[in-house]
């Protein structure tokens, strides 16, 4: 399916190409080689499983950034019914880098909010590469308040290289917008489920990423800054991003261990971009299962648990 081939995928992609050629040959020449084809298919499957079971952090990051990777809108299309997008922060404008709206997740009425990247050059520019301005965070908060008012849970999708660092963004209070969201999300009286579906960089991700359950798709990354940014600052050399990615421990496996996320969500073999429908179905089941549990918790307890969840995050020593 994917046109864009990652370096580590090459062996298996070549094998698959060979299988296709053999199949064509067997059809056109009417030669019976199905046994051979089956054998190679099994080999390809095994090779893929093998490759994907021992990806480096940098390789995972490449899948997270894959140009065909499903974005928020793709998940919404495959998971939600009757989705209605809601626009604007009611103060300054509408930020296309964050989308928000109401819809049905199975039988549940929920609010969905997420970073949105574009696929074509034109769309990328329109979506500002998924890098929000303050009005994006304020729109998100406005829609979360709607969720609270109508007692519906919130699901957020994280996929951003960071909040946009620009003059307008600073003039309109990027920091204040994110800070405010953190405060308000801490005390929102409805469940919040956060899913990292691609990239999760810094306050730009966290600005819609504070919640009761944090799920992380298998092939994604989440950290305080992008590896490139980290390399530029700490190595004074942005080409050291590969090392930075390793040092920062930014994958689902890492963050599960550190207690930053609650669950790593399986993706179809080869990554979510190989099968949108399947990726969305797996995620939908996970979200519904979590909501099932959270809906039973009274609001005050929900908030206390949420604050306590973040209180636990941190590693330090204490001598007396």
């Amino acid at each position, binding site marked *: 399916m994917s046109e864009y081939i990652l370096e580590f995928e090459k062996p298996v992609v070549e094998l698959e190409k060979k299988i296709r050629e053999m199949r064509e040959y067997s059809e056109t020449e009417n030669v019976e080689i199905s046994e051979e084809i089956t054998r190679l298919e099994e080999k390809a499957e095994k090779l893929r499983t093998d490759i994907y079971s021992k990806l480096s952090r940098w390789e995972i990051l490449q899948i997270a950034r894959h140009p065909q990777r499903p974005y928020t809108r793709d998940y919404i299309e495959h998971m939600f019914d009757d989705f209605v997008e809601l626009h604007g922060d009611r103060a300054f404008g509408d930020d296309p880098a964050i989308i928000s709206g109401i819809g049905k997740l199975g039988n549940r009425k929920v609010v969905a909010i997420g970073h949105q990247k574009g696929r074509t050059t034109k769309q990328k520019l329109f979506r500002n590469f998924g890098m929000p301005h303050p009005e994006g965070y304020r729109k998100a908060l406005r829609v979360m308040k709607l969720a609270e008012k109508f007692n519906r849970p919130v699901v957020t999708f994280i996929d951003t290289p960071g909040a946009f660092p*620009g003059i307008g963004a600073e003039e*309109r209070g990027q*920091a204040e917008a994110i800070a405010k969201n*953190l405060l308000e999300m801490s005390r929102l009286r409805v469940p919040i489920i956060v899913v990292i579906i691609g990239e999760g960089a810094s306050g730009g991700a966290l600005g819609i990423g504070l919640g009761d359950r944090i799920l992380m798709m298998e092939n994604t990354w989440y950290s305080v800054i992008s590896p490139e940014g980290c390399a530029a600052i700490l190595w004074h050399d942005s080409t050291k991003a590969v090392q930075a990615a390793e040092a920062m421990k930014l994958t689902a496996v890492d963050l599960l261990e550190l207690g930053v996320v609650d669950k790593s969500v399986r993706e179809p073999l080869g990554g979510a971009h190989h099968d949108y429908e399947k990726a969305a179905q797996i995620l939908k089941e996970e979200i519904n299962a979590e909501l099932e549990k959270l809906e039973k918790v009274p609001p005050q307890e929900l908030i206390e648990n949420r604050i306590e969840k973040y209180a636990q*995050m941190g590693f330090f020593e204490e001598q007396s």
Partner: protein
Amino acid sequence: MDWFKRAKDGLKPQKKKEIPELWIKCSSCEEVIYKRELEKNLHVCAECGFHFRIKSSDYIKYLLDDGHFDEFNAEIGSVDFLKFKASKRYSDQIKAAVKKTGQKDAIRTGFGKIHAHEVVFCVMDFSFIGGSMGSVVGEKIARAIDEAIKRKLPLIIISASGGARMMEGAISLMQLAKTSSRLAKFAETGYPFISIITDPTTGGVTASFAMLGDFILAEPGALIAFAGPRVIKQTIGQDLPEGFQRAEFQLSHGFIDSVVKRHEMKDRLRDILEFSTDNQFDEENTNGELNNENLLVNSPGPAESSLDDDQTN
């Protein structure tokens, strides 16, 4: 006579004359200032009003009654739980910073009094790994907030920070959530949180507690930003406007309540504390049982504060 002879190794660029230790050059107006004069003037240039960056101990001295600070949780220190190594090891950086500053991390927290108002007082140190917020800063702020909740006290945090501490990866990012969510809890008490922003405060600290004050004050000229100017310049490829992201810029864009000179900070804090806490009547009643110990030590008055002696305007 060899007066005109060239020195053997040719002409060398003259080594810039070191200004003797006793003097310092103002980084804004370049005026050479006698250090003791500068200290006496709260590290503010008498010529141009430039506010030098100062240490947590200075703020304690300038803002708390008698410079008395009852510190807590001073023994919490950072650990290199990711075994992080860039051009330096994080564990070495911690050690070096502890040695340099004599402190365990980039923030100090404790109790103090401001014109007899007891407060929980937190103050950051930019000199400790750029005032970066990792687990320790997050934890100490969280505990300070808990103290303020428990003892029903106002909370003051003086920020000076380059943002989240990258060497702690996503855990440092989570400190934004940890501090902000604890402030949500504090907000229920009805006690004030006063955020004082000093130069420079950027990134994760601005995008969490620093911007969440009921009252937000800033020192003149302080850089207050989400993304630092260098990053923005790189991204957009153009020069930034004059005064961009400075305290005055943030004031005119509506993100802080007031730009307050260092000399006036203590009095402004008193004004805010008097407005936002209930004990304004207690002050006249210093013999009242409840606030006895709080207020007898130092009754508010202009003569009390060492700051007022040096007030330049």
